[in-house]
């Protein structure tokens, strides 16, 4: 408990450093004073807007699309990544296609996404899912490749079928690498969700941000940035907690010996 408090304290100190840097930038004139409101103004605005204004709803909308997008990316990326990692044939079959699709920016897909999925959340989920797919896929693929072959042998020796091996050996052994990929995708997902909202105008933080900027309300705009940052932070904290449960063995097995 105490340990955890100290940990959180360190993190808060780190964040405080960020605030200090920001304010220093403002004070020294590196950041333009008018365009960049003070930390206090931002935090105040964030509080007001979250509890009374539309920022709360916007955050909810973004989170909703983000969660669905990330989930679909995982649903596709993890099995596909495992297949690509485990089978050389699958890997080479998909290689060119994957490498071709990967650098396609989600924004370039907006027209196609709107035509195919409409203006509703489906379009956003598609765009977020598309962007999040690659880190999950590549991370999983790497993880499967890094499995010690002797573990697979052991499982085969113990009579497991290919499918059972995938579920009971490859998946847990890959969990740490998947976790890294998903963690990466999770915050990328927030970014893409916001960007997609900016571009398409679907409701959410991004639209809120554009609106605030259009309205010249800098504090509100920065409040949206603050919230998306805090979202990222929270998401990461959740993932770290989940990762410790699912993949903690790896951390411990390497660190316990040091």
């Amino acid at each position, binding site marked *: 408990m105490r340990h955890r408090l100290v940990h959180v304290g360190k993190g808060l100190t780190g964040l405080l450093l960020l605030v200090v840097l920001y304010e220093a930038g403002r004070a020294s004139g590196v950041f*333009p004073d*008018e*365009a960049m409101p003070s930390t206090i103004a931002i935090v105040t605005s964030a509080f007001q807007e979250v509890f009374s204004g539309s920022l709360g709803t916007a955050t909810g909308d973004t989170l909703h699309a983000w969660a669905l997008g990330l989930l679909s990316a995982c649903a596709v990326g993890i099995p596909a990544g495992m297949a690509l990692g485990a089978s050389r044939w699958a890997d080479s079959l998909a290689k060119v296609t994957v490498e071709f699709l990967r650098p396609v920016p989600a924004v370039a897909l*907006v*027209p196609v996404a*709107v*035509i*195919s*999925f*409409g*203006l*509703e959340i*489906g379009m956003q989920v598609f765009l977020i899912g598309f962007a999040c797919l690659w880190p999950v896929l590549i991370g999983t693929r790497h993880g499967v490749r890094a499995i010690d072959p002797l573990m697979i042998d052991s499982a085969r020796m113990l009579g497991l079928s290919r499918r059972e091996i995938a579920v009971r050996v490859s998946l847990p052994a890959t969990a740490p690498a998947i976790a890294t990929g998903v963690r990466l995708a999770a915050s990328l997902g927030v970014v893409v969700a916001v960007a997609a909202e*900016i*571009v*398409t*105008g*679907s*409701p959410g933080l991004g*639209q809120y941000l*554009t*609106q*605030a*900027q*259009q*309205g*010249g*309300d800098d504090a*509100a*705009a920065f409040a949206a940035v603050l919230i998306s940052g805090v979202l990222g932070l929270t998401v990461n904290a959740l993932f770290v907690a989940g990762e410790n449960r699912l993949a903690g063995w790896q951390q411990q097995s390497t660190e316990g010996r040091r």
Partner: protein
Amino acid sequence: ACAPGTGVGEKAGKDSSGKTAVTVASLKVSATVPVEIAQRKGFFADEGLDVTLKYVEAAAAVPSVVGGEADFTILNAPAVLAARSNGVPVVGVSVLSTANEDPADSPLRLLATTLKDPEDLEGKKVAVDTLFQLPDLTLRTALRSKGVDPSEVEFVEIPFPQMKEALTSGQVVAADMTEPFATGAEQDKRLHTLISNAEGQTTDWPHTVSLGSEAFVKGNPEVVAAFQRAMDAAVAYTREHPDEARAIVPTYTAVPAELAKAINMPTWKSTVTQKGWQNWADVLREEGAVKGDVDVSGAYVQQK
């Protein structure tokens, strides 16, 4: 409605109250205020339309009508022509606003720091929000009318909210702003209006227009006509009640109420001629925004 193409070319259905259900993908900008008025003042309802408003950003506007997500959307006239010239089947159905009668009233204007004469812009950096969209094209037209060759000016894209910063920090010598940024920036003593974007244009130049997909417009002439009538009525109402319009703007955009009272509005006008559309076709071609011909015939539904 997720499947591609649903709704395109189909008859718009009537809902239980006997009204025709119509979806309009609108934008959260002050130029679309007639749409809000048509909805709130019952102009749509008067014409037997049950309108659902959805808000999109410009990038999603055209896909939403050609994909059947919405029946009508709002854009500016040159964008409609550009889309058509690239084979996207959209048709303008009504005009919401045109260039201002008095250029001084224009919501779009070029603000500068030290320059006094538009001719001094040649060889300098000028900020525009997005190249080849309405603000940029009107500015070019205005410059040409003053004898300045736009191709000699270096335009860079800087989003409206950052323009003032770019100006005062000296990154650009002038910036083409819209409302509410222009009004906000003008309060800064260091900045002044160099030229209005409305120079060299008349109220025959359509600015904001409503549009639908070709298939829908062909398949639903009555709905289109009803929509046209409702919009035209709303435009007329807007012109006559500028203060009411200014009061509505902050309710669906982020323009602060204070500022909304001071901002310039375009001229709300629903009738233009073919010549008015042709002007844009010429500008688009001249400025190199589209390749090849821009055919204005069929680009918009004739006024009833």
